[in-house]
C-alpha cells in the first residue's frame, strides 16, 4: 500500500481553462516531504496558474489537489497551510518588518509573547536579527527577499510556494540568493515549490524539477536526469544547450538508428527503448556542445575517430574561460557549437580553421517529431 503521508502535496489531473485558453492541462505530480521541487517552463506555460490553484486563488476546472493527504479543493486560501512568496514579494509597506512577520501569527490568534518569541527566532534563522524595527523601504533587495520568506516560514507551512522570487533582483544578487534559498530550505526542512523560467536556478537548487510546456508537464525528474536523459524533444532543447538537426530515419541497426539530416548528413543515434523509432519517421537529433570534439583537420589525434563526424570551418571562437566554445559552420551552413579548451597557445583553434567535429553515438539523442 502507498504511504499517503509521505507526500506533502499531490496533484492529480489538475486542469484550468480561461475561456478558450487551456492554461494548465491535466497535470499530475507528487512531492515528497521536505524536498525542493522546481517547475521550469517558458513564459506563459501556466506555472503561475498552477501555483495559484495550489494556493487557492483559482479553482481548478478539473482534478484534485491534496495537501498532506487531504483534498483542499473546498478550503479557502486563508485556511490552507500553504504559504506563498510572491514575485514582487508583496511585503506590506505600511507595516515594519516585525509587523509584517507577526501579521500571519496575529491572524491565527497567537498571544503576544509567543509572537514576539517566534518573530525573533525566525529573524535569527534568516540571519537578520537586527532589522525588526526597520521599515520595509529601508531594506535591500536581498533582505526583503529573506523577510518575505520569513513571513511565511514563521507560520510553519506544509508547503512554501515561490513564484520567480528572484526575478526582480540583479544578476549578482540572484546568484547569491540561489545558494541562500537552498540553505534556507535545508534549515527549515520544509517542502519548497519553486517556479522559474531560468533553468540554472532550477537545476542548481532542486531535488526534482518538472519541465512544463503549454500547460502540460513534459517530464519530472532529478536535474541530471533531465539533462542527460530527456524524454521529449522539448526537454532536450529547453534544458541546457544543444545542437539540433531535423531529419528522417533511414536505417535501424540493433540498438541504433541512422538518421539523415535535411542537409544529407548521416548521423547515428541510440534507439529509444521507450518509444522506438521506425524507418521513414521524421526525427530531431540533439547533441550537447560538451560532447562534441573539435579537431583541426589533418591533426593527429590519439583517440580513434567517433562514429558521428561532420566537417566544417570555424566561424568564431567564443572565449569564456573554462566555458569557451567554437562556432563551426557545417556543410549545409548551419552553426554548430562545440566546447573547446583555449589555452592561449599556438594549438588553439582560430576562425577560418577547417575542423572535424565528432562525438560518440551514445551521447546523441533523437526524438520522433
Amino acid at each position, binding site marked *: 500500500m502507498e504511504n499517503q503521508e509521505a507526500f506533502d502535496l499531490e496533484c492529480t489531473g489538475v486542469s484550468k481553462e480561461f475561456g478558450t485558453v487551456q492554461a494548465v492541462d491535466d497535470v499530475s505530480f507528487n512531492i515528497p516531504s521536505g524536498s525542493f521541487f522546481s517547475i521550469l517552463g517558458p513564459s506563459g506555460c501556466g506555472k503561475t496558474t498552477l501555483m495559484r490553484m495550489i*494556493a487557492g*486563488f483559482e479553482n481548478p476546472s478539473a482534478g484534485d489537489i491534496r495537501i498532506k493527504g487531504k483534498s483542499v479543493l473546498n478550503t*479557502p*486560501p*486563508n*485556511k490552507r497551510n*500553504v*504559504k*506563498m512568496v*510572491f*514575485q*514582487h514579494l*508583496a511585503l*506590506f*509597506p*505600511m*507595516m515594519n518588518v516585525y509587523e509584517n512577520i507577526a*501579521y*500571519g501569527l*496575529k*491572524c*491565527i490568534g497567537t498571544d503576544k509573547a509567543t509572537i514576539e518569541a517566534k518573530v525573533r527566532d525566525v529573524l535569527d534563522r534568516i540571519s537578520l536579527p537586527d532589522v525588526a524595527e526597520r521599515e520595509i*523601504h529601508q531594506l535591500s533587495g536581498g533582505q526583503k527577499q529573506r523577510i518575505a520568506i520569513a*513571513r*511565511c516560514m514563521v*507560520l510553519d507551512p506544509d508547503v512554501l510556494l515561490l513564484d520567480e522570487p528572484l526575478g526582480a533582483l540583479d544578476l549578482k544578487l540572484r546568484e547569491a540568493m540561489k545558494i541562500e534559498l537552498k540553505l534556507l530550505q535545508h534549515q527549515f526542512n520544509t517542502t519548497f515549490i519553486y517556479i522559474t523560467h531560468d533553468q540554472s536556478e532550477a537545476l542548481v537548487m532542486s531535488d526534482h524539477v518538472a519541465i512544463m510546456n503549454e500547460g502540460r508537464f513534459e517530464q519530472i525528474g532529478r536535474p541530471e536526469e533531465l539533462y542527460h536523459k530527456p524524454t521529449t524533444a522539448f526537454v532536450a532543447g529547453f534544458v541546457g544547450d544543444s545542437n539540433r538537426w531535423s531529419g528522417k530515419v533511414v536505417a535501424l541497426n540493433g540498438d541504433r538508428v541512422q538518421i539523415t539530416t535535411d542537409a544529407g548528413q548521416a548521423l547515428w543515434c541510440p534507439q529509444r527503448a521507450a518509444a522506438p523509432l521506425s524507418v521513414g519517421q521524421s526525427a530531431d537529433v540533439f547533441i550537447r556542445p560538451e560532447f562534441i570534439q573539435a579537431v583541426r583537420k589533418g591533426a593527429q589525434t590519439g583517440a580513434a575517430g567517433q562514429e558521428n563526424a561532420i566537417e566544417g570551418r570555424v566561424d568564431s571562437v567564443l572565449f569564456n574561460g573554462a566555458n569557451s566554445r567554437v562556432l563551426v559552420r557545417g556543410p549545409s551552413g548551419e552553426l554548430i557549437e562545440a566546447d573547446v579548451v583555449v589555452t592561449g597557445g599556438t594549438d588553439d583553434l582560430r576562425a577560418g580553421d577547417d575542423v572535424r567535429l565528432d562525438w560518440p553515438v551514445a551521447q546523441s539523442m533523437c526524438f520522433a517529431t
Partner: protein
Amino acid sequence: MQSDIKKLSLILLFAPFALWITLLIIIPHMGMVVLSLREKVAPRVYEFGFGNYIDFINEPIYWNTLLRTGSMSILVTFLALIIGFPIAYYIAKIAGKRSRGALFLLCLIPLWVSDLIRAFGWILLLRETGVVSSFLLWTGAVNQPIEFLYNDVTVVVGLVYTVILFMIVPLVSTLDGMDDAMIEAGYNLGGNGLTVLRRIIVPYAMPGIVSGCIVVFMLTAGSYLTPILLGGKNSSWFTEQIYDQFITRFNWESGAAFGFLLLAFTSIVVWLGLRLTGQTLANTVAKQ
C-alpha cells in the same frame, strides 16, 4: 551660469504661485482679520477691539449654528467615506480594465452640472408636489402629499451627494496603486476578509482617506447653496449667518469675524481629527 539659470527658472516657476497665494489668499484674509477687529462705536466711527468676537460668544444662536455646522459636516464626511470607499474599491480593484474608465467618468458626470442645478434637481424630486411624493400617492402608499424637503436628513443626503466625488477620486487613485498581490498575500498568510480590510487595505488607502476626508469636510462646512436650498429657513448653516451679516445686515465687521471663525473652527476640527486618528498631513502623500 548654470545655477543662475536654475535660480531664474525657479523664480519664474514660483512667481505665479506666490502671486496667487498673496493676492488671493493672504491679502484678503489679512483684510478680513483687520476688518473683523473694528468695532462700530457710532455711525461711521470705528475703533479697534474684539467686540465682534465677543458678540459671537454672547449670542448662543451663533455658536450653536457653528457647532451644528461642524457636527453635520463630520457626519457628511463620515457617510461619504462609508459610501465612497466600496465604490472606489470596486472601481480600482474589481472592475475590469475597460469598465474602470467608464465608471470613473460616470462618477465625474455630476460635476458637469452646476451646484445650483443639482440642488434644484433634488427640489424637483423631493418637494411636496415633487416626483417622489406624487409617486407614493399614486401607488397608494400614502394618502396625502409628503414634504421631503427642509429637514436635516435631506440636507445631509444632498450634501453627501454633492461631495462624495471628492472622496472617491483620491481613494481610487491610492487604491489603484495597490498591488493585487498584497491583498492575496493578506489572505495567504491566514487573514479573513475583515482582517485584510482592516490591516491591509485601509492602512494602505490611508493617504487617500485622509485627503478625501479633509477636502470633503472643508467643502461641506463651507458650502452654501445645498443647505440653504434643501434645508430652507431652518437649515441653520453657518455660511448662512455669514451671508446674513454681510448682505442683509450690511455688518461687514461681524461678517468678517464670522468668516474668520469658520476658518479657525474647521482648521481646528481637521487638526483634531488628524491627532485623534494618529495621522499627519504628510501622510496624505502616498508612501513609496
